[in-house]
């Protein structure tokens, strides 16, 4: 092979040119409901862009960004968890325990301290109950599944996924639910044939049964 000249200066070439630059002081993103926070150390948020979903994770003083083009998102999955219920039980037991101890204590100062601690746990319990059930969400692309830790409460998660589904549908088009179910079953059947019938799950129980066909609602309303 002929000799190669040294590389020209990189200033003439920048892949970053392809990235859209927002206006000064403005952001092209819309924040989605739901957030995660680990004290002051870590935070997570999701944002809707014009053509992609942006996942922002902050750890100490570093913000990390991950972008998912709407056209690349293959599926969204929400799984309800028992974490919120377990937390409620633990906080309830602590509130009741400290309350009972405060009730039976003769010392006036000790009583107020214990009742104060009980009130603190009761307040945490109330906040937990108001925030609603807990869940885990993930989006799936051709590369793999990506957890969405900011969507950890069912109510905001469903709202956020509804908004996200609306954008994805606008880009990819819509697939009727019965057709989606048939094609998933078809793929599962082919997979079972390939693997000799392994991992063929039983028919799932639907709880509660859908009262309205999903097609009657907008993508946002369905979630």
């Amino acid at each position, binding site marked *: *092979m002929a000799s*190669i000249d040294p*590389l*020209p*200066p*990189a*200033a003439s*070439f920048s*892949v*970053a040119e*392809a*990235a859209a630059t*927002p206006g*000064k002081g*403005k*952001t092209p*993103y819309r924040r989605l409901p739901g957030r995660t926070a680990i004290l002051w150390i870590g935070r997570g948020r999701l944002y809707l862009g014009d053509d992609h979903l942006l996942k*922002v994770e*902050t750890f100490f003083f570093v*913000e990390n*960004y991950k972008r998912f083009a709407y056209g*690349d*998102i*293959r*599926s*969204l*999955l*929400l*799984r309800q*968890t028992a974490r919120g219920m377990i937390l409620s039980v633990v906080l309830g037991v602590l509130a009741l325990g400290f309350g009972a101890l405060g009730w039976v204590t003769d010392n006036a100062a000790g009583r107020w301290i214990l009742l104060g601690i009980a009130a603190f746990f009761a307040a945490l319990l109330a906040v937990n109950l108001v925030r609603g059930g807990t869940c885990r969400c*993930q989006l*799936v692309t*051709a590369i793999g599944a990506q957890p969405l830790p900011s969507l950890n409460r069912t109510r905001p998660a469903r709202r956020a*996924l509804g908004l996200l589904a609306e954008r*994805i549908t606008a880009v*990819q088009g819509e*697939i009727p*639910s019965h057709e*989606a179910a048939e*094609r*998933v*079953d*078809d*793929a*599962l059947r*082919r997979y079972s044939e*390939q693997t000799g019938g392994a*991992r063929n*799950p*039983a*028919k*799932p*129980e*639907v*709880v*509660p049964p*859908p009262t309205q066909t*999903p097609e009657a*609602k907008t993508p946002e309303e369905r*979630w």
Partner: protein
Amino acid sequence: MPPVSFAPQPLLVCDRCATILPGAVTNTFEPVACPGCRALLVAQVFPAFFRPIAVGAAAENVLSQEDASCFYHPAKKAVVPCTRCGRFLCALCDIDLGGNRHVCPGCVDAARRGPTGKQDAATDGLGVQRRVLYDSMALLIAALPLTLIFWWLSFFGVPVVLYLSIRYWNEPRRGDFPRTRVRFVIAALLAVLQIGGWITLGVYYYQRRTHGLD
């Protein structure tokens, strides 16, 4: 080389028990029990779910003397020259940027590093992927000595805060989420206050010593 679809089927999997979910679970928009772990799931699939997954191009071997070889893989057949440096590239090394632009990994790396040759912390050459919040850092360093537990941090913290505030003054205004510079302003004010405090303390002790009060 055209992309090739491979046999694996599009399958939806429960993230808890890894059971493959049947069609009845998908696009119902109501919680449905996972057949494996009974966890309640809501799943939606989109048309992209059924799109065949394309595998990356495979480089062909050099078969004859006439075949040009890849600069990075001499045993592989070159398919395109890099539009930036002109090096011949095999299908494996070719990075197609669209618009008939093909670059090699070396040029992408050079673009990432920029004209200075240094790795840019804020970008990876494909848009901003991470951002360091220098303003929050400066504010924390300036505020910690005020808790008195970390008063000693003031000696080292004040220069650091002033350096961060001056060096990265424009940083909060950049990126996809521009921030105000209020954190830098508060941090700098706190740093100036701490300098004032140290000077006052020094003058006080100096006067006590010169007037023989100690």
